[in-house]
């Protein structure tokens, strides 16, 4: 039980995550991925004339909405059973955080940036509202996210997924080294 309570190392969590790809294929020929749920939620909730959102989401998208809801429940369950993790971050990252003016890493998110009161600050607004928009726009445009391209797509040796993953990291490095220092 003790091992379950502690944070799980990468070599335990990674292979477990990888198993979701064959598991979903066997369960119902579903391609592992989470950003599809954003598209299904849009189709279900937002009015649109766009062809991209005109599909029978109850048939084709109910599973990924259920999957996303499950992820949220699983997050809640993990915290209930074993508490919120306080990652042991690399010293170099902690140093970089303090040079950005953030307190030493504790908890899952820097509360100076991710809180209701921070929404009215430039860095809070850009991090949450602009950042969220880019996630939704980019994953729809690229046709997948970390799980869909980075794990499932690469594992099926799909060249487009490799391109997407390279672009994900290029965007991430740009955000980290160019945008964050400007914002913070």
């Amino acid at each position, binding site marked *: 039980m003790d091992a379950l309570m502690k944070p799980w190392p990468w070599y335990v969590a990674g292979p477990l995550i990888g198993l979701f790809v064959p598991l979903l294929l066997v369960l119902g020929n579903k391609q*592992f991925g989470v950003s599809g749920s954003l*598209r299904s939620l849009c189709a279900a909730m937002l009015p649109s004339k766009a062809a991209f959102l005109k599909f029978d989401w109850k048939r084709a998208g109910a599973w990924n909405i259920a999957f996303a809801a499950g992820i*949220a429940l699983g997050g809640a369950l993990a915290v209930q059973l074993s508490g919120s993790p306080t990652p042991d971050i690399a010293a170099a990252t902690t140093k970089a955080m303090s040079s950005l003016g953030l307190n030493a890493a504790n908890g899952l998110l820097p509360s100076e940036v991710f809180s209701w009161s921070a929404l009215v600050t430039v860095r809070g607004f850009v991090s949450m509202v602009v950042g969220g928009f880019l996630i939704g726009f980019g994953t729809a445009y690229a*046709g997948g996210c970390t799980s869909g391209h980075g794990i499932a*797509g*690469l594992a099926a040796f799909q060249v487009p997924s490799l391109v997407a993953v390279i672009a994900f990291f290029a965007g991430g490095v740009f955000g980290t080294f160019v945008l964050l220092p400007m914002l913070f």
Partner: protein
Amino acid sequence: MTGPTLSPISEPRRVDGASRAPSDSIVGVGSYLLVGVVFGAILVKSEVVSWYRIQEMFRMHSFHMYGIIGSAFATAAIGIQLLKRSGTRALNGEPIVVPPKQLGRGYRYWIGGFVFGTGWALTGTCPGPLFALLGTGASVLVVVLASALLGTWSYASIRGRLPH
């Protein structure tokens, strides 16, 4: 700018397949909920949901995230090969298919990928961890989710004018 390379997140064949096959039953949908619960718990226990872990990754200060993504990739690749070689069928009897993605001119992967990556760095979260974080009680992330939905909706609205 529409063409055969414009296959969206769920490839048309998946939607076609879904309209041919009966839609997922309540039990079926419930099983995806359950699978999601396990996935969400793993994302928390492995700290993938941490903003700081994502910073570590982009700054290349730690192997943690690379180890997770790399070993997930390897396990998934072996799993797909085993399913293919054994001719295993899905539970509903259909042959298992992984629809091939078309690269085309690749713009959607380069540009869309870069846009998403920028958002990943700004928020410190990608779609899976976003839902998991909401579950951990980080209520302000509903703002990130609402913005992400608006982003997907906006893409849908101007999709015809974007290079793919």
